[in-house]
């Protein structure tokens, strides 16, 4: 498993993470998959629906809203997701994964990430420290849902 991505796309993700700090940012990775090898052609920034708690709570309620917020949680609006995916399909590109940021946290998947993850998709995590984009890592959920395997990110 490996994910290849152009430097300019990585830069776009990094800028998104800095722009939305101290909130988590999120977006869709569009591209092509060939067996275990995925190639990202485009990163589409999407709104973190946790910034609209009333909407987000109707879809995927947080267990302890006092400690969980848009600063440490993200949720993509499924209607926006469906629309962007449909438009991408029409152009012949697929959703190969998603990215999100961890403001002032390491670029490692949390248990919450794992519980909500899907197999096959690539999960790119960007750490943003004091507003500055830092490490960027890639991950894939294991078949048994027990953990993430690191996925090498090859920057073209």
């Amino acid at each position, binding site marked *: 498993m490996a994910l290849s991505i152009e430097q300019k796309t990585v830069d776009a993700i990094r800028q998104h993470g800095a722009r939305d700090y101290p909130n*988590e940012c*999120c977006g869709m990775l569009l591209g092509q998959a060939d067996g275990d090898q995925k190639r990202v052609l485009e990163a589409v920034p999407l709104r973190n629906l946790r910034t609209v708690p009333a909407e987000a709570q*109707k*879809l*995927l*309620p947080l267990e302890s809203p006092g*400690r*969980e917020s848009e600063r*440490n*949680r*993200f*949720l*993509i609006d*499924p209607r926006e*997701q*469906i629309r962007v995916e449909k438009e991408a399909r029409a152009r012949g590109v*697929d*959703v190969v994964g*998603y990215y*999100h940021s*961890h*403001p*002032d*946290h*390491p670029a490692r*998947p*949390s*248990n*919450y*990430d794992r519980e*909500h*993850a*899907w*197999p*096959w*998709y690539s*999960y790119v995590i960007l750490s943003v420290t004091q507003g500055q984009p830092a490490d960027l890592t890639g991950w894939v959920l294991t078949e*048994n*849902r027990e953990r993430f395997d690191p996925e090498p990110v090859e920057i073209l």
Partner: protein
Amino acid sequence: MPVTVLIPTPLRQYTGKKESVVVEAKNVAEALQQLTSEYPDLRRHLFTDDGKLRNFVNVYLGDEDIRFLQKDQTPLNDKDVLSIVPSIAGGADLYCICK
């Protein structure tokens, strides 16, 4: 009655690469039961260990989220199309042991 279930990309590895599966069902719960009995490897990604639909699985009947219809008791009609839409959510650890 026959209804079509659209399978999202990350789950197609469990349906023999099929993008859609036709099942016989009167409501959403039955449709998902049928689907997972035909393709048991799908189960752990759609249902919790105690058999409840995972809360991050979005199911749409046409353009409507079944959460805002009658949830898994939403009745189905002949030739209805159900879409399984992966909810994309996550976030950092609540307590960080950073650096």
